[in-house]
């Protein structure tokens, strides 16, 4: 496998720099080159130790910054969805919040007429209910007793 090397640092040069690094003789520039060399993937096994050392120092030097990109991605997505949801909600409620009546298949939108039709249907229900209640009210306790006695009277015959 051909290794893609940055800054043209050959293995020999890298070995020499590593030696120099352990002796404490490397300059800042050389250490930078060495670090970039060791940051490469696919290096031979013999560089593992140095990679670990430089990797450790790298982590110590650069505190891992909070990666805001996914957060921003989600936030923008949520914001877009909220706009869509608000639009849908407005659309559905705008459609449902309406006042109309259909009489024999003909649509009526005049509010006073619609209200009058609504009241008529309410009267239909409450009128019958009152009739039923009235029936119960008219039927006094005496009537009930009399009716029950009548049943026995007819069975006696």
């Amino acid at each position, binding site marked *: 496998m051909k290794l893609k090397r940055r800054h043209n640092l050959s293995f020999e040069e890298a070995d020499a720099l590593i030696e120099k690094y352990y002796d404490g003789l490397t300059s800042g520039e050389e250490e930078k080159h060495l670090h970039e060399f060791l940051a490469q993937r696919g290096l031979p096994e013999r560089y593992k130790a140095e990679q670990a050392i430089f990797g450790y120092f790298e982590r110590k030097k650069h505190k891992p910054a909070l990666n805001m990109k996914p957060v921003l*991605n*989600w936030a923008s*997505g*949520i914001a*877009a*969805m909220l706009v*869509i*949801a608000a639009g*849908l*909600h407005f659309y*559905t409620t705008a459609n*449902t*919040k*309406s*006042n*109309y*009546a*259909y*009489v*024999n*298949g003909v*649509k009526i939108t005049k*509010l006073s007429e*619609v*209200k009058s*039709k*609504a*009241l*008529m*249907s*309410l*009267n*239909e*229900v*409450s*009128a*019958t*209910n*009152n009739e*039923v209640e009235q029936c119960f009210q008219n039927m006094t306790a005496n009537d009930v007793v009399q009716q029950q006695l009548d049943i026995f009277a007819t069975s006696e015959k």
Partner: protein
Amino acid sequence: MKRTKQFLVLLILCCLGVSVGVSAQDNLQIRKVFEKYGDRKGVTMVELSDEALEGYDFSLFKSITINNDSQAADFIRACLAQDESGAKKVKQVVSNGIPTSIFLQLPPKHQLFRLILFNETFKPEQKTTLIYIESKKDSEDVLKLILKKK
């Protein structure tokens, strides 16, 4: 790919949110009555939203009155039989084994009290009336008001 996945997840969440926001009557069987018979001949259907109706404070009022259609009346009764589950039956009048008047107090949904009123009369002609009410007021108060008004 990751972005598409993210979009789909949000879309599902959004749809769930919207579905929660749909009308409280949408999962009731009586909705079918309004859809099926609403614009037919011999039928009067009314829908009022957030309108003051002579002192009644309804968020939604829907009614349908069907003349001389016993099949429609049976269909309404079948729908009511399903909507009855979980509801409080305030009143039921049975004539010759057939319910002719049913008042149902449904459990509140989206902070709205719900009522279904059904009535069938035969004189002078067969007339079936179905009413669905949503109100912020307690359904018992609404019912009292309806019965008192007459």
